[in-house]
Structure formats: structure tokens, C-alpha cells
């Protein structure tokens, strides 16, 4: 029983992190068909901001991280992705890969590649008991934060005018533009939102791992990509469910694989992606409007 609670907490907290990252990637993809590799660097830079402000109160440090990630997201959009908006998805994808590598190299160049330790929220590094099971408070908070954010984002998308415009743009961008949705505004807001999500992920992830280095965000981003693909690229619900699924599967593999096979855990997850793509090439929840018209 206690083992099950432990696994459930692990799975949901990991899945929550993946879901938030996948959502950040999915938001951008849904409005401009850009698979944004540079999302990893939004997380990394936000974590560096946390590190730079580590003496300050949490509110200060976290605001700094949000400002950092949002600014970076908006700047990359302006410099790299806006000029390429009419290019084909392949070029856009190579461009985002390039932006990602450029920021990584800049970080290595300016700050060095050595990991720096940080502990943004020391208060969370204790254990609490659920019944008789000891679980980490941080993981419970992670689950809570993910749930609240998902709820907030849903409300934003369903209840505000900007949310409506964004959903319209995701469904059919040209049509939305014709009905008066301002393309630039929607895309910038999408990038800013993905920046906020990245900052939250950075806080939770840095608190778990306890250090920051120039490639901090890369494994998260790659896994989140997988999650969006499984869920259905362009579908936000799909991104969240895909993220949770990947988290759950990873935790289960970690718990139940024979010990010699455990290091290969991620390989199994990625093999599952390829399988999932074969059965449903457009993901579990295919986005409307993604199908190409001829």
C-alpha cells in the first residue's frame, strides 16, 4: 500500500512537470506550427535567474525568473521566428533547434558549463506523511502547483477574450486573422505564456535537482516533445494528458523494470513514442485543423 502511494506521488509530480513543459511547447505549436526546441533554454535561463537571485526572498527570485523567461521567449520570437513565419515547418524546426543551441553555447561561453548548486525553496525539502507513507513535500507541492496552473490556463483559454482568440488561431490561423484576430498579439501572448510556464517548471525542477547547468532544460524538453507527440501536436488537452502519461509510464518502468534494465528506462519511453505514432500518427487527441487541405 505504502509503495503504491509513493509511486502515485512520484508519477503525478513527474507527469505534472512534463505536462507543464509540454503545454508550453503545445501553446506555441498550436498557434504557429512551430516545434520550439528553444523551450529548453527558457527553463534553463529561468533557473539561472533563480540562481542569480538566490539570496533574495522567493517572491523576488521567482519574479526575476518569470521576467527572464518571458523576455527571452518574446525576444526569440521577434528575432528568429517572426521572419520565418511563412517558412515551412521543417525550416522553422531547424531554426528553433539553432536558437536552442545558440543560447546553450552563449550560456556555456559566459557562465561556464560547470553545474552551480541552488536551493530556491529550502522549506520544501522535508518529508511529510500520508497515512504511514513518507513522501517528499516538494513532490506534493509540485502536484498542487501543476493542478492550479492547468486550471488557471483553462480558465484563461475559455473565459477571456484573448483565450478565445488563441483557440480560434489554433483552429484555423488564416480564418481567425480574417475575423479580426491580431496575429502578432496572439503569437506574442502565446510565447509569453510559454515563458511563464517555463519559469514555473524551472522553479520546481531546480528545487528537485538542486543545481543548474547550461543543459538543464534539454532532457525535460525532449521528454515534453514526446508527450506532445503522443497527445497530439497542436492539441492542448493532448499535451497535458501526454505529459501525465509519460510521467506515469516512466515512474512505473523505474519501479517495475528489472534492475539491469532500469538505466534503459528512457529508451523504452522513446520506443513507446515511435509505437504510439504508428498506431495514431496524429496522436491520441488529434488537433482539429491540423489535417492539410489539398
Amino acid at each position: 500500500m505504502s509503495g503504491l502511494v509513493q509511486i502515485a506521488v512520484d508519477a503525478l509530480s513527474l507527469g505534472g512537470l512534463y505536462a507543464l513543459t509540454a503545454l508550453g511547447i503545445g501553446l506555441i505549436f498550436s498557434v504557429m506550427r512551430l516545434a520550439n526546441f528553444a523551450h529548453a533554454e527558457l527553463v534553463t535561463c529561468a533557473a539561472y535567474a533563480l540562481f542569480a537571485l538566490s539570496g533574495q526572498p522567493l517572491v523576488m527570485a521567482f519574479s526575476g525568473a518569470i521576467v527572464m523567461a518571458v523576455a527571452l521567449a518574446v525576444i526569440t520570437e521577434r528575432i528568429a521566428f517572426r521572419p520565418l513565419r511563412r517558412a515551412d515547418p521543417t525550416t522553422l524546426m531547424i531554426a528553433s533547434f539553432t536558437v536552442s543551441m545558440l543560447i546553450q553555447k552563449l550560456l556555456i561561453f559566459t557562465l561556464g558549463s560547470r553545474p552551480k548548486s541552488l536551493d530556491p525553496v529550502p522549506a520544501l525539502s522535508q518529508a511529510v506523511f500520508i497515512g504511514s507513507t513518507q513522501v517528499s513535500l516538494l513532490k506534493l507541492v509540485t502536484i498542487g502547483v501543476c493542478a492550479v496552473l492547468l486550471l488557471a490556463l483553462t480558465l484563461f483559454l475559455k473565459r477571456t477574450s484573448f483565450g478565445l482568440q488563441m483557440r480560434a488561431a489554433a483552429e484555423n490561423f488564416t480564418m481567425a486573422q480574417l475575423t479580426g484576430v491580431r496575429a502578432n498579439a496572439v503569437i506574442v501572448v502565446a510565447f509569453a505564456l510559454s515563458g511563464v510556464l517555463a519559469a514555473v517548471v524551472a522553479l520546481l525542477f531546480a528545487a528537485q535537482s538542486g543545481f543548474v547547468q547550461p543543459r538543464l532544460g534539454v532532457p525535460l524538453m525532449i521528454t515534453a516533445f514526446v508527450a506532445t507527440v503522443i497527445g497530439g501536436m497542436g492539441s492542448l488537452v493532448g499535451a497535458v494528458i501526454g505529459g501525465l502519461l509519460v510521467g506515469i509510464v516512466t515512474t512505473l518502468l523505474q519501479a517495475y523494470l528489472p534492475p539491469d534494465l532500469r538505466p534503459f528506462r528512457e529508451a523504452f519511453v522513446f520506443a513507446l513514442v515511435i509505437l504510439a505514432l504508428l498506431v495514431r500518427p496524429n496522436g491520441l487527441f488529434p488537433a482539429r485543423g491540423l489535417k492539410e487541405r489539398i
Partner: protein
Amino acid sequence: MMYNLLLRAAPLLALVALIVAITLLAGIADTVTSRRVILSLVNVVCVVGLYIFMGNSGVLNFSSVGFMAIGAYVAALLTMPAGPKAMFLPDLPIWLAAAELPALAGPFVGGLFCAAVALVVGLPIMRLSGIAAAIATFSLMFICYIVLGNWTSMTGGQISLMGLKAYVGLWTACAFAVGAVAVAFAYQETRWALALRASREDAVAAQASGIQVARLRLGAFVLGAFVCGAGGALYGHFQGTLRVESFYLDPTFLLVTMLVVGGMRSLTGAVVGCLVVSLLTEVLRLAEVGIPLPGTGITLTAAAGFGDVVLAALMLVILLFRPNGITGGREILGNLARSERTHDQI
């Protein structure tokens, strides 16, 4: 007839001449420069391998570094002398520990193994297109990295595998680069490659004309994997040591950069892009060491890591302002054969 054939092969001959000329020049250069040239010739093999699939099909492929890794390890395991092999990898199966093929068989066996792997994994993946295919090949590269990095009994895991025969010199590298270019050129002159390029331009129209896109893509993928695997084996036997880390994101980015900078739609683009980027990296590396300004006694020095930043920035600039690369997707001397054909018709 002979003349027409010669015109048709003009791009190939020009590229071969370019590669041989560079090799000849490197032969009279100092050891350091000549080693850099060998490395860039090995890179030519890998970029051409990437081009065979990506250039002809237009589908983004991030898996070529994974195939390089597989080719490198297969070649190393089969050709390493028994002594170092027993020292670094004591847990190998007996038949593998005893295997010692001639060194030059390495790239071919490594390539063949990669081709077999590509055939198996490509069967499902080639049914995808666009971003799904890109993510799937990315996953493939990641799987290779994780499996090779953790399969300690076979690859040494995170520890470097040392003691490979370092037989790849200037002329070996040159021969393989010429071979890879010739294979790619021969392939792109076939009707299958022509049909595949048609599907690149318009997948639906190609399918409507009876082209079986998935099957043709698979063919190019397998051939590309063979060339990349051979390139990986050469890389390993040039360095003399193997680390899983050298087959991860950085080289993936480097190979894609080389192809895109040159122009991913032509073989000339693949070769030229590789050479230009290699030259640029070399200049930037010299800048990190320090370039003395003649006559002044001042040495210009860039900080370490500067070269990587410039390379990535340059790639971004090329994507923004010249997305079709230096060659714009044209072959060198590629218009000779075409103009000749037009004359025939008139």
C-alpha cells in the same frame, strides 16, 4: 553518348576533383592542419549520408548521429585487437571477444549493420512525415545514446573505449569521402531518387502519380544509414577512442548545420557546406588560440567557447536570409547536362 554521360556526371567529377585537391593540399601542410582536414573529410562522409535521405526526401532527420555511433561501436568491437578489448570490455560474449576482422572491413561492416537497423526501425518510421517524422528520428537518436551509454558490457558505457586501430589517414579519408559522394550521386540519378524528390516537392501529387512514398523513403533511409555508419566507423578509427558523448546533440547540430548552410537540396550543397563550416570552425579555433597581428606584436584572442557561439549565430543568419543555403539547391556544373539535352530536342 560517351560525351553525354560525361556531361551528366560533371557535378560528380567536379566534387571529386575538389576533394582530391583539398587532400593534396593537406598533404603538404603541417600535422595539425592535416588532422583537421582528415576530420572534415570524415564529416563529408557523414553529411553526405545525411543528405541522401534528408536532401532527396525533404524529411528532417536527426538520427544520423545515432547511426554514426552504432557504426563506430560495431566496427570497433569487430576490429579491435584482442588485448585492449579484453582489458576494456571483459564481459563480452566469447565469439565477439575473439573476433578480429581486418581494419578496413570495419566501415563496411559497421555500415551494413546500420543499414539493417535502419531497415527495421525505418519500416514504421517512414510512414510518418513532417514534424512527427522529425520527432521520431530524434527519439531514435536519443535511444541510441541511452542504450550505448548504458550497455556497459558491450560499449564500456560512460567510460571511453580506447585502443582502436587509428588507421584513418589522409588518403583513407579521401577515398571514403569520394566513395560516399559517388554513392550519393549514383543514387540521386536513379529513377527512385527522382520519384522521391517529386514526393518532396508535392507528396500528394506524387502519390497520385503512383509513387510509393514510404517505400522510396525507406530505401534512401537505409542507404543513408549505411553511409553514416561507415562515417562513424571512420570517425572512431581516426580518433582512436570512442565516447558516447561524442554522438549526441552537438554533432547532430553540426551535421544539420553543415547540410543546411551548404543547401540541403543538392549533393554539392552537402559537400560545400561541410567544407565551409569545417574551414570556419578551424578559423574560429585558431582565434581561440590567438591570431598574431603581423607587424604589431598584438595577438587577437577570443575566449574559449566563442567559436561555438559564432557558428550557431551564423547558422541562424543563414536560415533567416538564405534558407536554401549557399548553393540554393543547385549542383555544381549541373546545368551542363540540362542545356545539352535541350539542344538535342531542338
